[in-house]
């Protein structure tokens, strides 16, 4: 049984209300931080904890806070990114819905560390009811003196506002989020300048994921060094994984990043295996943008080691044989799933969500979708597969924001690992309309060559 820090109390009846949350030990981190620590000490604890951004990129949070410019007389902002729109990722919704005060507590502590007197939660419009839960919790916190002027008599003012997005995936990109928060069209900004220097309304801003900010609470309560003891290597603490797809028990799980992928999929504590006696074919371990892996590479790295559920192990082998932890959207595909169809769905999503600002992403995503649709419906050519590869290569890295990369990676990985399934679709167009390619060799044990002694 792994250690739980965020969701430990998530199912205490009434935990969404202030009374129960406080009774269960809530807001201790605010008391500790404001009464016994300086803002820099709080940042130092977060640095010591080794906490990495939970939104997808895995950038060390303490370092990000350290980059925040602090010019005199200019306000600073903390913005929490709750625009959780990645297909397969729904961990932040769970956290905000069941235990909203945890996010608010983390935000007050983080705001204190960063010197933000006005902090924002940018929440996706589709989470309308979650926004109401958050607003209710904020009102309760304010009524009990945790928000507003002169919190705990320590001279620190802070208020939190919830801002609803209008349903755009791109607004989860931090600079597009800031544009949207300013009331403009959600187009990503060209970096540099980075938000840490020029963010919201031109002021230094830190944009953090919901889970990242919530993790500040246990870090302050237990101390950064204690937090860093949980987990493995540079993957410290616990991580929320939203598991979905062909598994017996889809849902949000908190793991301490010491378990293997195999254990996560098959143990009853987590996903509970694959239903109806089917076999594991492939998995996207970190939300729709990260590369898909076939079963054999998912469970073992190319070196033959067991793949673990943490940042380093999932990324082992780079994009050639590895993937990414991403935002923790764990999508499992069994042997009745069609990778071509699946890749088409993702391409359609990215085409729809591209902001249209820069040409490779705007035009390339639509082109990839059309070609994939042709292959899926039996009108494809073998040369289309190479064309797809060339298109994704010309999108990746050539765009303003990472959406271009996010659209290119799933297509690249699907072709890299499942090329024969694409070819089968092209060569057997009629058969491909009637049945799926199936598991084939994707779960076969990988051959690890023995190092030859010279």
């Amino acid at each position, binding site marked *: 049984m792994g250690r739980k820090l965020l969701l430990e109390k998530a199912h205490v009846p009434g935990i969404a209300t202030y009374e129960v949350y406080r009774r269960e030990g809530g807001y201790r981190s605010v008391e500790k931080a404001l009464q016994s620590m300086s803002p820099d000490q709080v940042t130092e604890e977060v640095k010591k904890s080794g906490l990495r951004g939970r939104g997808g990129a895995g950038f060390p949070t303490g370092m990000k806070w350290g980059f925040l410019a602090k010019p005199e007389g200019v306000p600073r902002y903390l913005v929490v990114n709750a625009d959780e729109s990645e297909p397969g990722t729904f961990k932040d919704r769970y956290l905000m819905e069941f235990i909203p005060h945890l996010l608010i507590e983390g935000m007050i502590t983080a705001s204190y560390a960063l010197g933000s007197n006005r902090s924002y939660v940018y929440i996706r419009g589709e989470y309308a009811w979650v926004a109401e839960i958050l607003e209710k919790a904020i009102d309760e916190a304010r009524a009990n003196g945790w928000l507003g002027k002169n919190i705990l008599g320590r001279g620190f003012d802070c208020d939190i506002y919830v801002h609803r997005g209008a349903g755009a995936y*791109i607004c989860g990109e931090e600079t597009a989020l800031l544009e949207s928060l300013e009331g403009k069209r959600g187009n990503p900004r060209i970096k540099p300048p980075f938000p840490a220097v020029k963010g919201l309304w031109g002021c230094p801003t830190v944009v953090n994921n919901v889970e990242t900010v919530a993790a500040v609470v246990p870090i302050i309560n237990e101390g950064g060094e204690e937090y860093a003891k949980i987990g493995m290597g540079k993957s410290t603490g616990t991580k929320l994984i939203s598991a979905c797809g062909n598994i017996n028990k889809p849902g949000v799980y908190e793991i301490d990043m010491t378990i293997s992928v195999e254990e996560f999929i098959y143990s009853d504590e987590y996903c509970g295996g694959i239903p109806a006696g089917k076999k594991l074919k492939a998995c996207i371990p970190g939300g729709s943008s990260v590369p898909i892996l076939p079963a054999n590479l998912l469970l073992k790295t190319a070196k033959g080691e067991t793949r673990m559920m943490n940042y380093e192990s999932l990324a082992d082998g780079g994009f050639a044989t590895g993937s990414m932890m991403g935002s923790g959207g764990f999508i499992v595909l069994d042997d009745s799933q069609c990778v071509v169809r699946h890749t088409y769905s993702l391409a359609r999503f990215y085409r729809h969500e591209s902001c*249209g*600002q820069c*040409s490779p992403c705007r035009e390339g995503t*639509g082109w990839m979708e059309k070609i994939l649709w042709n292959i899926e419906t039996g009108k494809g050519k073998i040369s289309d597969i190479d064309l797809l590869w060339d298109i994704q290569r010309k999108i990746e890295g050539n765009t303003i924001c990472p959406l271009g990369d996010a659209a290119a990676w799933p297509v690249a990985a699907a072709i890299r690992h499942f090329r024969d399934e694409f070819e089968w679709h092209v060569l057997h167009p009629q058969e491909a309309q009637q049945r799926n390619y199936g598991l084939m060799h994707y779960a076969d044990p990988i051959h690890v060559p023995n190092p030859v002694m010279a």
Partner: protein
Amino acid sequence: MSSETNNTVPGVKVTIDNITIEVPAGTTILNAARQIGGDVTPPAMCYYSKLEGSGGKCRTCLVEVAAGSTADPRPMPKLVASCRTGVMEGMVVKNITSDKVKEARAGVVEFLLLNHPLDCPVCDQAGECHLQDLGYEHGKEGTRYEFDRRTFEKEDIGPYIQLHMTRCILCYRCTYVADQLTDQRVHGVLDRGDHAEISTHISKAIDNNFSGNMIDVCPVGALTDKTFRFKNRVWFTKPVYAHRDCPDCCGKVTLWQRGDEVLRVTARKDQWGEVCSHEGKPGWICNTCRFDKKSAHDWVIEGPADVSRHSVISQGHYQQLQTPKETLPEVMGGRAPKLMMDIHEVSEVNRIELSQLPGAATGKDFNSPTDQGK
């Protein structure tokens, strides 16, 4: 106005394609390359030095930064948009000397042309279209796109401007013009991705005295002058500099004449296709000058306009042809580019002044003297 040189700022040395230049700190790579000129200047479809905030979107100006600066000589991991990246002391930039850049740029051109109709012969912008030039210089000979292009109905936005969204490449320049030159912007980008479109909200007329400048900044034929549409091909017209005393704008324009008739009035453009600056201010012109003063009597004619040697308009044999600086030998460290074949060994083409011939040119006029004996 980042392109203007300010000599009081200490300079930084930057090397672009083996050519080192000293520019004021804060200059972008693109503007530094423009100061060198010639082939080392990256193309730009969305950047417009006179419009604040423009650039970074089209990705045609991507360059490779082989060394970030003297202090931190690491290369930048990705290609960067040269229009929005400032130079640093000791920065080493590769543009035409980088295969990565050339490949990425060819890709961008292909992307830009995916949904752009290839009907230049019937497009009013042909001959002065930046996308046409870009495709010619950096594109591939064919397309790999096999699907229908997106199309839109033509739309009149106001009495003077027609919007044909089918041709738009979403450079956002016209929205910056509306933001920065007019009192109130009534048009913008609706929707997103490849279904994004420039439009007024909703079918409002654009009515502003400086709205005509949107036509000048449009790199393609998406925004065209309704008073000139299909009156003439640009290469049959004669560009002439002229001015008048205008209470609203600088009054310095280019008249596009056929005989004595003024077919069109535009702002004066520099060699990058941007509106020229006059006394440090961009020479935007007002709608009165642009649309209402269509008689030669309204203007004081200054003389023939400068025309780039590469422009199709130059086929009219103007005297004031602007030849871009030859930078290739310098890029190649003094070596001359290897000539695959000298056309003049077999033909006198391009050496013969066509206007001097008594009648139409024939094959005989081009046969070189060495061939004539055979």
